[in-house]
């Protein structure tokens, strides 16, 4: 089904439209902002790939990683330094940027820089967080918690709308399947689309094996291309994938982040499936196959 279209990007950056019959958008970057030079380097490499493929994109990297498995894990550069780097990436490349925020107090600062504010999956039903996200007046990227049913995401959407949010992107990043394991239920895309808002597949977190390595999460990134193609065929509006030029030494999510050398092939194929999906939608119409009254 065709969703409403949301527009990401304020000021001088190139706006990215997500939803409706718009092209597949890409949201990605290293999981955490590691340092200024690395952030700029990664942005430059993603820009080259997305420009070549003509894929509209948003740079995503977080200044604080609050859901790490160990107190010794890299926690991030913090709000001030992290946002300063994101601001530089934004200006340098003229593209929208995004970060999540884990504390309601950080929302305003995040929204002052970021074009898209992200609500972490674990916090997707926390009223204080959703209110803070809505009050930034930026589009909100709402990730479906691994513990949430897709139909209950409507409650979180309603909370954001209640506080004035009108542009929301709903993302699947997997659903818990027993302990230390998650699966993707592709029914969640049409179900979340019933809210009217566009949907996104977070393909790198979807292959995560949560905290499967004792004090860290594992992941089976070999499945990323399969999930990306399947989600594009299913009808997503945006693809989310964390990428890194040296996953083995990434400071966050090293076991799930995809090596950037594979981004072009994953993105090109996802784009092709998305375009085919739009063509089929024009040819065959909406997927209404249920029984009439």
């Amino acid at each position, binding site marked *: 089904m065709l969703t409403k279209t949301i527009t990401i990007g304020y000021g001088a950056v190139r706006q990215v439209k997500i939803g409706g019959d718009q092209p597949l958008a890409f949201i990605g970057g290293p999981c955490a902002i590691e340092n200024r030079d690395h952030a700029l380097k990664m942005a430059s490499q993603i820009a080259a790939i997305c420009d070549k493929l003509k894929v509209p994109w948003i740079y995503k990297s977080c200044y604080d990683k609050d859901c790490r498995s160990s107190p010794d894990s890299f926690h991030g550069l913090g709000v001030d330094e992290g946002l300063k780097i994101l601001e530089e990436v934004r200006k340098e490349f003229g593209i929208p940027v995004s970060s999540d925020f884990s504390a309601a107090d950080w929302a305003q600062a995040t929204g002052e820089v970021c074009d898209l504010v992200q609500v972490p999956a674990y916090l997707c039903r926390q009223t204080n967080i959703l209110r803070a996200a809505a009050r930034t007046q930026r589009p909100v990227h709402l990730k479906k918690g691994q513990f949430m*049913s897709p*139909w*209950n995401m409507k409650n979180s959407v309603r909370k954001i709308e209640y506080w004035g949010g009108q542009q929301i992107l709903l993302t699947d990043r997997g659903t818990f399947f027993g302990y230390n394991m998650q699966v993707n239920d592709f029914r969640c895309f049409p*179900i979340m689309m019933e809210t009217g808002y566009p949907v996104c597949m977070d393909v790198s977190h979807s292959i995560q094996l949560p905290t499967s390595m004792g004090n860290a999460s594992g992941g089976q990134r070999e499945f990323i291309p399969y999930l990306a193609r399947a989600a594009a065929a299913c009808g997503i509006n945006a693809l989310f994938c964390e990428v890194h030029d040296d996953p083995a030494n990434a400071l966050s999510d090293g076991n799930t982040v995809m090596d950037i050398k594979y981004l072009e092939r994953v993105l090109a194929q996802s784009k092709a499936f998305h375009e085919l999906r739009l063509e089929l939608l024009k040819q065959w119409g909406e997927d209404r196959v249920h029984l009439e*009254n």
Partner: protein
Amino acid sequence: MSTLKIDLSVADVMMPIKDAPVAPGTAILKEILELMGKFRLGVVCITDRSGHLEGVFTDGDVRRLLLKEQKPFAALFNDDISVHITRKCTTITPESKLTEAVNIMGDKRIWDLPVVRTDGVLVGLLHLHPAVKTLLGLGKQVG
């Protein structure tokens, strides 16, 4: 022996809107079922923001829904009621004769009639029992 009150109009007997089960289309099914229980009626009227009737959701709709939908109750409960309402429902105007309203309810085998002005605004709800009791001179006129 009571005499038939055939001159009464619907407006004389209907529940005013403040006493009737009314909800917006964004109310979820679970809230609508609670409303039916609260009012002890088998119908909820669904209106838009300006009070125009969009449709009704009835006990019959609940039965049909349960037989038709295969999704989990947790999902069904969270559906916006606008997805499941009957939009082409039978209504009556407040000026109509009560006898006409009771006839319609008998013919269509329904228990309630939303009372709607000619501009589409819901102004009340007519339930069969008070309508008949009032016609028979047995009940207290309301509205």
